[in-house]
């Protein structure tokens, strides 16, 4: 009888630690997402090369990449995206996060919302 009780208690403990671990993982993922989103918002709002017309994070997250001010001509848009990717790479490196310029550019797709892009970057980024 006592062995059964101990076994049930152990199982409960294991379950609790599993849920605790799961919650920690979710919290960590949310923290990383938030970090990437805020730095994306800030880096695209560069005072000398501003492509971000939004002034709050929520609107920015829901808006599409294409709605940012990359330019009218397709060549100009591509060049603006490259400059941003270059700056964003260095900003992230400063905080110990590695996301290659290639990964930044590949996911910077006009039809995606900025939140969706950050999700994709989150999968590719290495957080130290």
């Amino acid at each position, binding site marked *: 009888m006592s062995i059964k009780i101990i076994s049930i208690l152990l199982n409960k403990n294991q379950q609790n630690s599993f849920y605790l671990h799961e919650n920690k993982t979710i919290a960590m993922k949310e923290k990383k997402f938030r970090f990437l989103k805020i730095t994306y918002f800030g880096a695209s709002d560069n005072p000398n090369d501003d492509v971000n017309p939004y002034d709050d994070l929520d609107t920015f997250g829901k808006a599409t990449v294409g709605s940012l001010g990359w330019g009218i001509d397709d060549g*100009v848009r591509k060049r603006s995206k490259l400059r941003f990717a270059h700056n964003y790479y260095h900003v992230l490196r400063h905080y110990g996060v590695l996301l290659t310029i290639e990964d930044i550019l590949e996911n910077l797709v006009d039809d995606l919302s900025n939140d969706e892009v950050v999700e994709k970057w989150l999968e590719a980024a290495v957080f130290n």
Partner: protein
Amino acid sequence: MSSFAQSKKDSTLTLFKTSALELDLKFIDPAKGSFGIDHQLILERSLKSINSTDGSFEKGINLNLNSKGFTTVSGDKNQNNSIINELKVEAFPLLFVKPKQISENESWQDAADDADLISQSRSLANHVASPFWLFFNIHGKHETTQDFKNYDFALGSQLSIATSILNKFLDFPFNLLRSAPNNNPRALDLSIGYDYVIGLKNTDLSSLSKNNSNMNRLNLKAEWETGIFTKDNRLVFLLDSYHDLDAATKLKEANKNWNYFYMIKLDHLLAKSDRTTTKVSVKYTHGGLPPNFDRGFVLGGGFSLEF
């Protein structure tokens, strides 16, 4: 934008890695065609890319096929009667000035909890931004009217510069009139190109040019954008000019040796709710584009809803 293949793996069947089609529908003055479509199609493939092992540096050679133009219901009334189809190979970028270095010295975990992270990333991005970028391409263009009755071919090359060095000077008047702090200019994008144009005999310029069939043409382009008045307004300027380097007297008399096209666009972020963002745009275009350089203007308006 949609993509034929977003994966990093290239297959032999994938001709272009990225593609995009943008259609902009607009109602215009009935005297100018009633209803028009601005189109832009881009297909692109990376031919060669050079990356550093730490992912910090990317240079490449791309193959790009694109088409852009303005089409109206009544083609003969179209004031911007030009469709340009272009195939180009580009060095992307050719070179850029190395940015100032910053050390890897802050923990992202600490920074994520910092209420000041937005302004920190703003100033870090400004600090590491390269002030000067250079791009180069060689291209072939098919320039036609929307009914394809007038057309020519242009072969040439183009150098493009992107720089933020002139922003202070260009932004001076707008900065004086601006109330919002975070609505700043984008870097100036300038291009200079040379085209050897053949097939002029198929255009309205044939009777005005020296040998009726070809032209040495200089192309200058500029695009710049800045914030204006409040935090919700952006103003975009675009200039596209063409100069015949060896113009015949008739062409000069017809005032078609220097041709220009410019666009001024004002975007106003109208309303933001939990679900939608509404933007109103007013666009004014003036001037002439290849192949005929018939001058006219179009004032168009529209709004976009994003869900």
